[in-house]
């Protein structure tokens, strides 16, 4: 049966990863009809939602798991996957379990998580530091200290792409790394105003101020263009999720040799478990509905998980797969995961609305040097106060 699958994975590494999913699904005797929409979730989501609410749903669609699809589920537009989940025993195999919690609404499971994406990585270009004549830093503070040398060599120390979510994400990473896990959860999980206004967070804003200074001159929009600056040595480093690794791979770079990755910015080695999941709109066609079940189970199939996540540069959602082909960076991630040093990511903790407000704040903050960290913090507190 043909199933149309929509997603916004269109960059090089992403596309290669999707191909794995499609291959696995096609192998079951069905057909994966690809419905890629470029331009990140922002462009693609309204289209997906319009189609689902407009009564012309696709077979399956990517969302970031978390709260993006909550209302669609509540409106009864989504297929209940509990049957597949129980049959395949997802409760046991999906790890960390918080992933499945994000898919669960009123005790029913509505999505199939496919990977874990962690944002907390600092990617560094070994070549850039060599040019600048400094050692490759081992943590955020060393990186900040090395910035002047990089600048002198005409290298942008920290590449931050122009799209708002990148600045916002970078801040969240700084928050988790510098503020620590507890503060992070207090602020985003409990929406604790007092914590948000506190000195811990002020420190984070200080660090963000450094990041802002270091990012001057990036002049690119897309995250992968920013990554490319790191790959080509035009920038010293980039705070970006593990998906950036895919770009390094495609460019034929080797972890450790050509580039260095510092999880948790080398400060706090915690990984947030954001990620992607597939949702399955409710279809009338019996055949298709069956195919949906097949797709759901295929997605979590160990072989698929390995193939997909290796290409995508993300971590698999089940702990029982063999990832010895993984590279250095991924192994670092797996280790942290194994240690249980995980938190839920902002996608799961905050509504899209609050996320958007946060993005507005940080994209303004990063672009506008005249905005003091104190002002920014005040506004941040307001956002947390009204967040849900």
């Amino acid at each position, binding site marked *: 049966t043909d199933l149309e699958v929509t997603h916004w994975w269109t960059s090089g590494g992403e596309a290669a990863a999707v191909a794995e999913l499609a291959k696995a699904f096609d192998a079951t005797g069905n057909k994966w009809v*690809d419905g890629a929409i*470029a331009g990140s979730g922002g462009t693609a989501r309204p289209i997906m939602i319009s189609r689902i609410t*407009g009564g012309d749903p696709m077979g399956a669609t990517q969302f970031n798991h978390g709260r993006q699809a909550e209302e669609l589920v509540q409106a009864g537009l989504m297929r209940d996957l509990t049957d597949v989940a129980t049959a395949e025993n997802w409760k046991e195999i999906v790890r960390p379990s918080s992933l499945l919690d994000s898919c669960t609404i009123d005790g029913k499971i509505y999505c199939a998580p496919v990977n874990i994406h962690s944002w907390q990585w600092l990617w560094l270009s070994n070549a850039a530091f060599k040019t600048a004549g400094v050692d490759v830093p081992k943590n955020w503070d060393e990186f900040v200290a090395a910035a002047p040398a990089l600048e002198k060599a005409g290298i942008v120390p920290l590449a931050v792409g122009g799209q708002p979510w990148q600045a916002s994400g970078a801040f969240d990473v700084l928050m988790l790394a510098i503020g620590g896990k507890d503060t992070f959860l207090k602020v985003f999980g409990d929406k604790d105003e007092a914590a948000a206004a506190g000195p811990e967070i002020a420190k984070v804003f200080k660090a963000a101020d450094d990041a802002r200074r270091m990012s001057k001159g990036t002049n690119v929009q897309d995250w992968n263009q920013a990554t490319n600056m790191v790959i080509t040595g035009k920038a010293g480093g980039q705070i970006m999720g593990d998906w950036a690794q895919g770009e390094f791979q495609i460019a034929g770079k080797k972890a450790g040799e050509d580039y260095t990755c510092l999880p948790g910015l080398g400060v706090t080695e915690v990984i947030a478990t954001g990620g992607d999941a597939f949702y399955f709109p409710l279809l009338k066609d019996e055949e298709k509905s069956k195919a949906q079940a097949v797709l759901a189970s295929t997605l979590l199939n160990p072989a698929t998980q390995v193939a997909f996540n290796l290409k995508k540069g993300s971590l698999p959602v089940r702990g029982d797969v063999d990832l010895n082909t993984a590279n250095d960076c991924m192994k670092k991630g797996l280790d942290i995961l194994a240690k249980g040093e995980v938190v839920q990511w902002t996608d799961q903790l905050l509504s899209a609305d609050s996320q958007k407000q946060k993005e507005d704040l940080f994209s303004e903050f990063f672009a506008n040097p005249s905005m003091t960290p104190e002002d920014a913090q005040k506004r941040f507190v307001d956002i947390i106060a009204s967040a849900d």
Partner: protein
Amino acid sequence: MSKTVSAAARSGSQTLAGPSGRKPRRMLSSRNIIVYGTLFVAAVYYVLPLYVMVVTSLKGMPEIRLGNIFSPPVEITFEPWVKAWAQACTGLNCDGLSRGFWNSVRITIPSTIISIAVASVNGYALANWRFKGADVFFTILIVGAFIPYQVMIYPIVIVLRELGIYGTLTGLVIVHTIFGMPILTLLFRNYFAGLPEELFKAARIDGAGFWAIYFKIMLPMALPIFVVAMILQITGIWNDFLFGVVFTRPEYYPMTVQLNNIVNSVQGVKEYNVNMAATILTGAVPLIVYFVSGRLFVRGIAAGAVKG
């Protein structure tokens, strides 16, 4: 009689008395310098981007990385064009713009025809058959021209869903018809109002009804404004991205969706040459329409827009 003759006789000597014949004109008068100078400078501003697009699309990536964007290609390559047309990937589909081209054609032709048909009938009814309340609806329509498209997406999704045509080509054609209606109706209304009213009266006395007058009398005289409407609609619909992607399913996605995918889904370095080739390829149809019928466009604009 004699007076004329003597004057003619005298004229021989007087030709020397001063300027005679055509007033001499310098080619490089200050007026000419200003006029052609301004036009030339403006023309550079307008041509430059097209030039950059074409030049870049003919370069290889290494050359782009090294040289500047205005220098002509050292080595002309059509690789980017081939890639943009037939190879560029979005997601798993690596067949470039070609898959979208026919969709665009399939969307543009019926949308253009139907939206113009509807708007021209509206304009005709408004100009010649004024009935109570028509002006109110028309005013609403004109105000509607100012509403951002995005705001209307939700209500329209609901309407199309209720009609059961969401996701179909029909639905998309209707959407284009709706959003083309304000400005096209305005154009047609002004044009038909500018035709002599007596013609309409004569046809009524001849016994022609609403449709007979429209088809037999008005349509044949409306060529200039049809050209304008056609150009506006072809351009608008062909270039549309939002409606094409929101109101249809992937098998109908227009070329602009592929363009967006090519331009926005970057594989490492942005392949500017492919982007530019894709851009030109996507713009080719409306551009050709313009180049072919630009003269008619100005004429039609003069007929339909000037009396506001």
